[in-house]
């Protein structure tokens, strides 16, 4: 009996100790000033990679033999907005990519317009922030070529990608997917607006009719279902101001690591 009591006390003590330890750790995690200090890690990663990638080195390109047999579709698999359904029913004939914001000539490009531009094909590895990877073959038009067509106006510092899908249902539109990259990545030769995957038209689950490929960053930066590219000098006024759907939910804006 006494052993049992001691054991019980020990177990209760242990549970309390571990619970308070957990609570202590979570209190640290939720402390805003600690969080601000920890963001130094992201800043260091960005600065170190930008320094070492000043030559705009390419992400590794693979061969057909390296393609993964199944490419996992992640995030939204089928946008549920009426607008997207209408475009999909019309085989995206009425779909237009809007390029506006701080540009000299706002553009409205059809899929045919994009396919008429010089194409780049690349077999690259897609790394999800969760940890998995898949290798796919992507064909599309370089973002740089589109930006050249539009012409950047003074103050253009980021390209913001507005998407068709609501990743989270919301009344105020805050669940709409969007992403942003800076001009270093925007001008990178492997940063393409892709309309074809593994030799076929881009599937709905992978972001038809057009998705971004920004090969030196993680998967959540590769926005799908592109509707509009807006050139801005700051993304503070968009969404919750952190530069993307996942960024607004605590993920890092720079996803090169």
């Amino acid at each position, binding site marked *: 009996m006494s052993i049992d009591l001691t054991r019980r006390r020990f177990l209760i003590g242990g549970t309390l100790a571990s619970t308070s330890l*957990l609570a202590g750790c979570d209190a640290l995690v939720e402390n805003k000033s600690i969080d601000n200090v920890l963001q130094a890690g992201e800043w*260091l990663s960005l600065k170190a990679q930008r320094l070492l990638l000043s030559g705009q080195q390419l*992400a590794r390109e693979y061969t057909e033999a390296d393609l993964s047999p199944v490419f996992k579709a992640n995030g939204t698999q089928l946008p549920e907005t009426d607008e997207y359904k209408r475009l999909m029913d019309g085989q995206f004939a009425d779909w237009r990519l809007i390029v506006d914001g701080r540009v000299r000539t706002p553009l409205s490009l059809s899929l045919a317009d994009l396919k008429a531009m010089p194409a780049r094909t690349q077999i690259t590895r897609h790394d999800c*922030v*969760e940890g*998995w990877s898949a290798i796919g073959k992507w064909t599309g038009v370089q973002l740089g070529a589109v930006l050249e067509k539009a012409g950047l106006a003074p103050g253009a510092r980021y390209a913001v990608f507005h998407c068709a899908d609501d990743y989270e249902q919301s009344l105020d539109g805050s669940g709409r997917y969007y992403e942003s990259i800076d001009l270093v990545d925007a001008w990178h030769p492997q940063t393409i607006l892709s309309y074809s995957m593994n030799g076929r038209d881009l599937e709905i689950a992978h972001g038809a009719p057009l998705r971004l490929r920004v090969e*030196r960053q993680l998967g959540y930066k590769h926005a799908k279902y592109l509707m509009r590219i807006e050139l801005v000098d700051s993304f503070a006024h968009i969404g919750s101001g952190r530069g993307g759907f996942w960024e607004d939910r*605590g993920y890092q804006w720079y996803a090169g690591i």
Partner: protein
Amino acid sequence: MTQVATSSDKPARVKVYRHSLAVRITHWLNVLCLTFLLMSGLQIFNAHPYLYWGEYGSDALPDASFVAIEAYADGDSMKGVTRVGPIAMTTTGVLGASYSGGELTPRAFPAWLTIPSYQDLGTGRRWHFFFAWFFVINGLVYLVYGLVSRHFRRDLLPAAEELTPRHLGHEIAQHARLRFPRGEAARRYNSLQKLAYLGVGFVLLPLMVLTGLTMSPGFNAIFPWLLDLFGGRQSARTLHFIVAALTVGFVVIHLAMVLLSGVWNNLRSMITGYYTLHLDGGRRTGDEH
């Protein structure tokens, strides 16, 4: 080397300055970094609790993973199952499914091992990369100090005679019997200590950094040869996990040795720098340096 002798007829207690300030500071900062790196690393692992070999791998490919830590429905409840290759074990309560807020929850590693305790990949990554940078900078300080002060050569590099099978066999047998060097012999690290510290400092921890960098798409563009070195990004992720497990294994043995070979003396020496030697009476030697 500073030392203070006490009484001469009893076994003499000699204080020796064993750990320099730089070693002590970098040691404790390393403890801090590795603790948070492990806990935030397990948080990140929980986002995709599978391991693969090669360049790619995802749960859309059945049978691609060789390690999986999953939860399955089990009647009204659930069970945690850990699979390594063909072997599957029920690990409910610890791996796959464990208690969180009093409820059995599907999660690879349990709440008490992750930062934060709840599922939050973005925060886990923020903690991981902050402490990864901290760890790398701390490691570089240690490396420069160890080279410049000759700490590595003087204290860690084993002499040729220490590496003979006979000598190592003897030390292993002594350690296994929990007989640790005393007196003069405890003045310096023994050969097993030297090899363990060198193995961790120059093999395991650098491998942690390199396999970690290999998972970064940005660093892949900078150092593509890392992908070849480790056999692909998913192999690097798997190795990152295995080397982390080996590092935890080292820490467990290290703590056991600290406890068994004189916990207060060991702890004090890593805090103040001074370690007490118990010399036999009369055998106390004159000038040490």
